[in-house]
């Protein structure tokens, strides 16, 4: 602000200076001119006087009246510039003289020889310069001496008589200066006000138009300034709008990116996104559970920095090689070194920009945990292998016995035995096939329970009796112990009969001669417990954990000596569980084995409803 004010004042000062300079110049010119005029006047007066005196007769000047008349006349003129008049002889000695008050006649100098001509000389009094004219003093035609007329050289300073003139000239000029200055200040006032207003606007940091009242050219300036301000504010508004649009679209982009990322996070597979250079830019949470690597260790790193499988690293490297960049997706399966039980399928897909299929900007890598599928496939293969083995074993026996029958026809007993074996094996085969079908149906979930209300007591008695009839040949004792009144249960009669049959026939099959098979039903609060026990070969602790597995048969010779295919108990348990019941093997027994079957009294209804 001070600088601005000073700048404003500087113009005023400059104007004053220029005015003073002009005044000084004019005054100087006037003085010089005036001095010259006065000089000319002095010269003409002095030379005129010198000539006048020279033309006067010598006697009139010297002898008559001792020269006082003429000289007195001269003195009486009272010329302020007059210094002296002196008559000297040829040797320079004064003959007569007259001087102005207080003037000493200076020495003649080193030109004592009088001249016949009027000559001009410059001399100096004690204080002032003197112009001296010398004329010959003639006495009857001869040179008698010289007439010296001295006049003061006019000074630079004007005479008092001229002061009024100069004052008259100077006054209006001096009056004009403040006038101009005031005028200038007045003209500058709106500019200062405008400056102040701009200053205020700057301090308020707001873009506003000026509200200054003004007229003339300055109003034009204010108008244009305001026009400029509104143009700037329009431009700023446009920029603000563009800015908010940009912010909105950036928000939308962020939202979309997050949505995609959260979708990728929800995938059951490990997903990694790599940029063009092969560095990971995104890795979802499944990376840790499938690959066993923290996503933090993957993001921002190249494949060889986080992956210890060479095949995977070389596959991913092919997507980032500049020379032979892969443009198609590829996948293969591998087993991570850290977890040999796992099987992981890795698939890599090049990421193209939507507009340009040639522009690859990264790679999407998906790791799928195939372990379960592989195990399932292994289990399926194993199951099929078991089935093939179990189907072929009786066929093998039948085939061999049939062949033998053709040859061994001489012994009728051998024939009967052979035919019995064939018959047993056919029965075993039929049983196996029907069990296999049932278990497959149950496992596939395609079996529909045909539930009916069945009186449990009657149902168990019926099944138990049919088994006891067939087992009588082995000298076995059969004990059935049912409570007096047993309620009805909601079961699939046919399936439940298969389950019960499997338990009971095992009790018969793995029994010892003279042993017993017992069935007891316990009526508990909300369930019935069917206990089937035998006095047979028993089940070892090692086998106890596996007996419900499909195709499991104990390794003992006692077991192998008996026909079986390892499906009976697995199927029985599946059927019981289908009825929301459960089965357990009572391992507390010292000999033989006891199975407990738990069937809920009413929960089957509730569970159905649920």
């Amino acid at each position, binding site marked *: 602000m001070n600088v601005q004010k000073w700048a404003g004042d500087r113009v005023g000062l400059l104007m004053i200076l220029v005015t003073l300079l002009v005044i000084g110049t004019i005054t100087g010119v006037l003085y010089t001119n005036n001095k010259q005029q006065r000089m000319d006047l002095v010269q003409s007066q002095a030379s005129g006087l010198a000539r006048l005196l020279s033309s006067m007769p010598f006697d009139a000047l010297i002898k008559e009246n001792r020269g006082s008349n003429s000289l007195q006349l001269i003195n009486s003129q009272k010329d302020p510039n007059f210094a002296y008049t002196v008559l000297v002889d040829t040797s320079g000695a004064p003959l007569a003289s007259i001087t102005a008050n207080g003037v000493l006649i200076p020495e003649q100098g080193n030109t004592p020889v009088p001249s016949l001509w009027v000559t001009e000389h410059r001399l100096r009094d004690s204080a002032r310069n003197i112009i001296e004219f010398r004329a010959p003093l003639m006495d009857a035609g001869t040179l008698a001496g010289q007439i010296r007329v001295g006049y003061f050289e006019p000074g630079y300073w004007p005479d008092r008589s001229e002061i009024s003139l100069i004052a008259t000239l100077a006054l209006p000029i001096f009056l004009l200066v403040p006038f101009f200055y005031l005028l200038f200040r007045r003209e500058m006032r709106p500019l200062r006000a405008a400056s102040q207003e701009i200053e205020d606007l700057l301090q308020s940091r707001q873009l506003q138009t000026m509200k200054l009242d003004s007229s003339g050219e300055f109003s034009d300036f204010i108008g244009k300034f305001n026009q400029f301000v509104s143009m700037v504010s329009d431009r700023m508004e446009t920029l603000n709008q563009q800015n908010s649009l940009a912010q909105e679209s950036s928000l939308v982009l962020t939202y979309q990116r997050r949505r995609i990322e959260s979708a990728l996070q929800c995938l059951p597979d490990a997903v990694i996104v790599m940029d063009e250079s092969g560095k990971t830019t995104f890795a979802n949470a499944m990376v840790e559970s499938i690959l066993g690597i923290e996503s933090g260790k993957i993001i921002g790193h190249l494949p060889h920095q986080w992956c210890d499988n060479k095949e995977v690293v070389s596959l991913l490297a092919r997507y980032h090689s500049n020379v032979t960049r892969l443009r198609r997706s590829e996948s293969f399966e591998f087993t991570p070194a850290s977890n040999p039980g796992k099987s992981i399928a890795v698939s890599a897909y090049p990421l193209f920009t939507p507009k340009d299929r040639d522009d690859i900007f990264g790679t999407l890598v998906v790791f799928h945990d195939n372990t379960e599928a592989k195990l399932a496939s292994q289990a399926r293969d194993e199951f099929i292998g078991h089935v093939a083995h179990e*189907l072929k*074993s009786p066929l093998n026996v*039948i085939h*061999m016995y049939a*062949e*033998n029958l053709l040859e*061994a026809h001489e012994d009728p007993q*051998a024939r009967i035995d052979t035919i019995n074996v064939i018959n047993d094996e056919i029965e075993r085969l039929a049983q196996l096939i029907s069990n296999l079908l049932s278990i497959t149906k149950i496992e596939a979930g395609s079996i529909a329970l045909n539930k009916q209300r069945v009186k449990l007591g009657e149902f168990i008695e019926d099944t138990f009796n049919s088994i006891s009839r067939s087992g009588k040949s082995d000298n076995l004792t059969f004990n059935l112990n049912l409570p007096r009144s047993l309620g009805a249960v909601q079961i699939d009669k046919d399936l439940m009969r298969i389950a019960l049959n499997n338990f009971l026939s095992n009790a018969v099959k793995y029994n010892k001669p003279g042993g017993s098979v017992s069935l007891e039903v316990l009526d508990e609060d909300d369930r019935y417990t069917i206990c089937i026990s035998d006095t047979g070969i028993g089940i070892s602790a090692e086998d106890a954990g596996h007996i419900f597995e499909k195709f499991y048969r*104990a390794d003992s010779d006692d077991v*192998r000596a008996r026909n079986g295919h390892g499906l009976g108990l697995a199927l029985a348990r599946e059927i019981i569980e289908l009825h929301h019941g459960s089965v357990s093997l009572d391992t507390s027994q010292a000999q033989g084995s006891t199975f407990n079957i738990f069937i809920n009294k009413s929960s089957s209804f509730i569970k159905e409803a649920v």
Partner: protein
Amino acid sequence: MNTILIVDDEPHVIHVIKQFLARFGYRIISASNGAQALTVIDKEHPDVLVTDIQMPKMSGQELCSAIESDPGDYRPLMIIMTSRTDHELRTWSESFPNAKFMEKPLSLRRLSTYLNDYFSAIQSDG
């Protein structure tokens, strides 16, 4: 007398093979699993081994490998009966020069013919 060892966990199979091959004058001995078979082999040194693959305690594969890895020069003919038809098992059995793969259901006539041919070939060689 040529001795044949039959190894199978199925008693019916042993019984019928025994009955069938006895007609040709072979001495038939049997074992119900690989482990039992090894003790029998130590004692009897049978000329031919007819074995199943899927058996408890010691499988047919383990039995054959044990015989093959024996440092002695006892190398009987090994006839492997199995229901498995997969390629791996076939390749495995082919790795033994003295092994013969026979698929179940096994034909007793084919078995006896093969054995008769084998023994007569040995006899004519000897």
